[in-house]
């Protein structure tokens, strides 16, 4: 067993806070890192020590391996957790951390590489007997080869970057005439974003559901799945609402997919927490899509229904502990239903990111509600970083109760100063299609266009009170917050508009 005395979290915002909380509960010392422009970030005051990564762009700070390692040295950290995003799926970083003699809280570099190259991952999965989406076996650059491949698969197809992920460098092609332009575009994006311009083709599955399985493995090779997360509510290929269990899975299908997920993890010698993503077609067949070799954004819904702490077990496994016998002997079963809503700073209609100052921030609370947030009142929301403001998780005894609880939580949420996708989240939860459980990845495009309602009388009166100058202009309410946030309050009206 290795010991972890002080953990550095190489991330920012909500996921940094999430990991720091568990480290504190385990009695592990903590180190936060921050870019100078992000010195007021909410993760900075949550650790015992805060190490600056200096000024500069994301590439020069949160993505800089030398600076993160230097921060670990200067703060005396003996382990590094990467969170998600940034360096979390960077095999070079994993190797550099271990070469430094530090504990890497993540999968082995080899597993990251095996899954990171989408083409190699497809090949490995096929060898392991895991079904994959029909598509090409090798990356190609020659337009004639790609055209033949597309004919073989049948349109519509998807052009994907071999090194890609998260929808980047991916485009849909419906007819042969559009293939060449799409391939050139994808190659250019892939080259600039990933430094590798290989692309490949995949058959586009119409109206699929996106269902992923949480997997976990210890260093002795015990490998389990921790059930599914339904992630079909997406816009622009990005998830906005996730839930578990999925209404699409029968017990038999759940069992088969869970086994395939475990096979996928074993095939690459996986250790720690990971996620195997599948597409489910309209005939109920599942296909391996990709693996995420890190803690997933939506991991809290698994924690909510299983009553476990995934970050704790990431740390335990990194120390060399075995997975709990409840997990390995199949005694773990989900209870109730959980829904996560991703609150983004963005225009609710065109989905473009929004920047600004958070003037007022009140989080929902109460029975069955968990909020993992990356901002507080006074925070600057910058275009520099991911526009995710918070994850709101509602757990209920059953699916209808969880949906009502999620809507109640959205009603309690107060965000002023930055536009959010709250109206879209509420529209999803209220839609007949979502409530029926029979939805697919095109749900958002089919939502009825909601009329924006005019301000109600109370809003006019409150605005008149604030703007007439007669009354104090509604300072942020003294909401009950935990002692971490007892810093200086930003006062409205003082900002240079």
């Amino acid at each position, binding site marked *: 067993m290795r010991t972890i005395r002080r953990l550095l979290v190489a991330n920012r915002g909500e996921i940094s806070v999430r990991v720091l909380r568990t480290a504190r509960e385990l009695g592990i010392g903590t180190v936060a890192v921050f870019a100078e422009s992000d010195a007021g970030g909410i993760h900075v005051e949550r650790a015992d020590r805060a190490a600056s990564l200096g000024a500069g762009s994301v590439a020069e700070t949160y993505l800089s391996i030398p600076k993160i390692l230097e921060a670990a040295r200067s703060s005396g950290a003996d382990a590094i957790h990467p969170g998600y995003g940034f360096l979390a799926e960077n095999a070079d970083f994993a190797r550099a951390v271990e070469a430094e003699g530090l504990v890497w809280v993540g999968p082995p570099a080899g597993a990251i590489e095996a899954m990171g190259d989408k083409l190699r991952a497809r090949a490995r999965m096929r060898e392991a007997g895991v079904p994959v989406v029909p598509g090409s076996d090798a990356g190609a650059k020659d337009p004639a080869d790609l055209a033949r491949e597309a004919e073989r698969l049948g349109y519509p197809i998807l052009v994907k970057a071999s090194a890609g992920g998260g929808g980047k460098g991916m485009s849909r092609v419906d007819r042969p005439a559009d293939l060449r332009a799409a391939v050139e575009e994808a190659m250019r994006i892939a080259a600039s974003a990933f430094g590798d311009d290989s692309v490949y083709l995949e058959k586009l599955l119409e109206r699929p559901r996106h269902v992923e399985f949480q997997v976990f493995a210890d260093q002795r090779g015990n490998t389990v799945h921790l059930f599914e997360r339904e992630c079909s509510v997406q816009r622009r290929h990005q998830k906005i609402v996730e839930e578990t269990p999925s209404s699409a899975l029968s017990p038999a299908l759940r069992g088969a997919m869970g086994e395939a997920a475990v096979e996928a993890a074993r095939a690459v010698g996986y250790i720690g927490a990971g996620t195997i993503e599948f597409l489910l077609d309209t005939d109920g067949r599942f296909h391996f899509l990709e693996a995420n070799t890190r803690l997933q954004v939506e991991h809290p819904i698994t924690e909510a229904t299983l009553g476990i702490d995934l970050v704790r077990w990431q740390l335990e496994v990194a120390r060399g502990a075995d997975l709990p016998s409840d997990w390995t002997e199949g005694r773990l079963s989900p209870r109730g239903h959980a829904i996560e809503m991703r609150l983004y700073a963005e225009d609710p209609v065109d989905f473009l*990111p929004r920047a600004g100052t958070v003037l007022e921030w009140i989080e929902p609370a109460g029975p069955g509600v968990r909020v993992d947030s990356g901002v507080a009142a006074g925070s600057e929301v910058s275009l520099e970083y991911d526009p995710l403001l918070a994850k709101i998780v509602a757990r209920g005894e059953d699916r209808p109760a969880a949906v009502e609880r999620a809507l109640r939580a959205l009603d309690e949420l107060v965000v002023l100063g930055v536009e959010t996708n709250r109206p879209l989240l509420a529209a999803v939860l209220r839609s007949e299609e979502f409530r029926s459980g029979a939805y697919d990845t095109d749900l958002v495009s089919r939502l009825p266009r909601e009329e924006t309602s005019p301000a*109600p009388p*109370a809003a*006019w009166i409150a*605005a008149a*009170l*604030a*703007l007439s100058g007669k009354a104090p202009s*509604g300072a942020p*309410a003294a909401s009950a917050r935990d002692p971490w946030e007892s810093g200086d309050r930003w006062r409205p009206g003082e900002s240079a508009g």
Partner: protein
Amino acid sequence: MKGIRLESRGEGREVLLENGNALLDGTAHSFREIRRGGSLVALELDGTVVPVRVARQGDRAFVWCAGDVFEVRRPAGRTARARPAGGEPHAGLVAPMPGRIRKTLVQTGEEVAKGQVVVVLEAMKMEHAIRAPQDGVITKLRHREGDLVDAGTVLAEIS
């Protein structure tokens, strides 16, 4: 007390507040302010408690009410978005959305044809080609590759 004129979501209201009564475009409501630590947290409006939060920024107020957020302005204020002098549309290239300048494909002094890609903007993980709106010469490039820009930012000028 004099009424004030307010606008929100394309609608206007004349609001007059007096002694716990509000006149909204002539319709009367009774209300009571519920405050905590001096801050408005709810209104009791015609006997019903409605939670509200307000943050003021100059001539506009952000109001949260019943889960929804409204931006309310005093129309008299100079609150319109800053426009180039004269209010004429700028003879230049404007970022249609917030993002990062991924690539600048021209140099100052270079001739460009209408429709030619001048700047590649990255936003929402996608690249967007920003094209010259007319034939002309690039007289000014305002930003460098890697810069973050807001929607409406002039990226280059063309004469």
